[in-house]
């Protein structure tokens, strides 16, 4: 890869959105190229500013306490490791002291009481290990419970969305004056069919079944056709079973006698139909 090609990667690299191979390659290049490193720094600063797009929120005060407690505990361990005679055996201590005249303290002689104290220490250690294991198990159970809760919440949210959609469909089709028109599949999609319901205000809902999967970059677009004049509607992308629905507004001039049709178009939609007709209410 050339120097210029690496430069091309930088803006996306700053978002951490490169594929891993490209990211590794860029990282290796940055190690050896001060110019690119400096350039990458500017991109990373720009990317960091995007954090300001998130709403500022205050964490609970316990977080600060937890961080500082953990830091103090780490500090304590470090100091203990550095100073505890238990972690430095006599031989190493002597080596460290070299020719110094300082003589290490002798260990006190072992007695029945020191032996008992040792047993207590071992028992306490075992107890602590057991406690740590219990806490770990509880922590894992807590995480699993939280994951399950997230899953249930997700399913509930999906079910609520589905229910809201169905209620909306029901409200529309039971509304006085709502008209329903069937769209039949054409020879390019003989198994497809759809129904469009729209009320007096033009509020419309289309439900389609059996549509072939749309190719990449394409989607199905609804059309309201009066005479020879097609008026564009919204686009829909069917699911893997070929089912899809959309809400739209029937134009006022298409409220009486329009033909409804579905064509395959670019995913962003177009102003005039360009693709094949898949569904149509026309005879």
């Amino acid at each position, binding site marked *: 890869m050339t120097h210029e090609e690496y430069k091309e990667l930088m803006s996306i690299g700053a978002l951490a*959105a490169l594929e891993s191979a490209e990211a590794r390659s860029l990282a290796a290049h940055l190690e050896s190229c001060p110019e690119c490193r400096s350039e990458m720094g500017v991109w990373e*600063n720009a990317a960091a500013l*995007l954090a300001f797009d998130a709403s500022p*929120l205050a964490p609970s005060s316990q977080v600060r306490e937890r961080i500082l407690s953990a830091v103090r505990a780490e500090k304590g361990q470090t100091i203990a490791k550095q100073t505890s005679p238990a972690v430095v055996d006599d031989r190493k201590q002597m080596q460290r002291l070299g020719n110094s005249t300082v003589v290490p303290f002798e260990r006190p002689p072992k007695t029945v009481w020191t032996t008992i104290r040792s047993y207590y220490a071992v028992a306490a250690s075992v107890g602590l290990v057991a406690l740590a294991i219990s806490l770990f198990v509880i922590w894992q159970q807590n995480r699993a419970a939280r994951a399950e809760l997230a899953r249930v919440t997700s399913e509930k949210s999906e079910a609520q969305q589905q229910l809201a959609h169905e209620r909306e469909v029901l409200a529309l089709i039971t509304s006085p004056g709502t008209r329903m028109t069937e769209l039949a599949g054409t020879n390019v999609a003989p198994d497809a069919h759809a129904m469009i319901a729209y009320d007096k205000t033009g509020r419309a809902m289309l439900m389609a079944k059996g549509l072939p999967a749309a190719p990449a970059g394409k989607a199905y677009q609804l059309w309201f056709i009066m005479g020879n004049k097609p008026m564009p509607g919204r686009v829909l992308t069917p699911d893997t079973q070929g089912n899809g629905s959309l809400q739209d507004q029937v134009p006022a001039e298409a409220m009486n006698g329009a033909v409804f049709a579905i064509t395959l178009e670019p995913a962003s939609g177009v102003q005039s139909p360009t693709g094949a007709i898949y569904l149509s209410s026309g005879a």
Partner: protein
Amino acid sequence: MSGVQTEQISDVELLHAIASGDEGALARLYDQYRVILFGLLVRILSSREEAEDVLQEVFLQVWRRAADFDETRGKPFTWLVTLTRSRAIDRLRQLGARQRLATSAAQDQTEEASDALKETFRSEQREIVKGALAGLPKEQRYALHLAYFEGLTQSEIAAKLDAPLGTVKTRMRAAMTKLRTVLGNQLETLG
């Protein structure tokens, strides 16, 4: 401008102090950036609980790795945000896509920082960034959003948008170039 420079030096000095084991410096750095970093974490993880957990991890990592910070290679703010985002996206991937679906409810429950906190927060920078993002075409803004807040790679974004990879790369580069131009002055004020 001089005030801003003082702040920059202060952040670098704080990181040096942290590297030498000064927990007070860590507390000061935390107080200075907790609001923006926690906001970013909640936006990515959509859960206050997970965000607090990751915020704690981030500052413990700052404590352990402050000596790795190299002021010749970046600004403290960028280092902190990069560390935070990286941890958040790792957590997001651990939690899986399912968690992302449960996000809207969680987002509704999050509370914004109090007015007092907002005053101390760099609201001016925030408005400028929001303005710069609002000036981008919708498809560029969405591609940036998917990368930055959902942690998707360019290929994953292309698949999600059902768009060619080349198109996605072009959108992302164009968006970043515009942001870099518009936010040029802000880059100088980063702590």
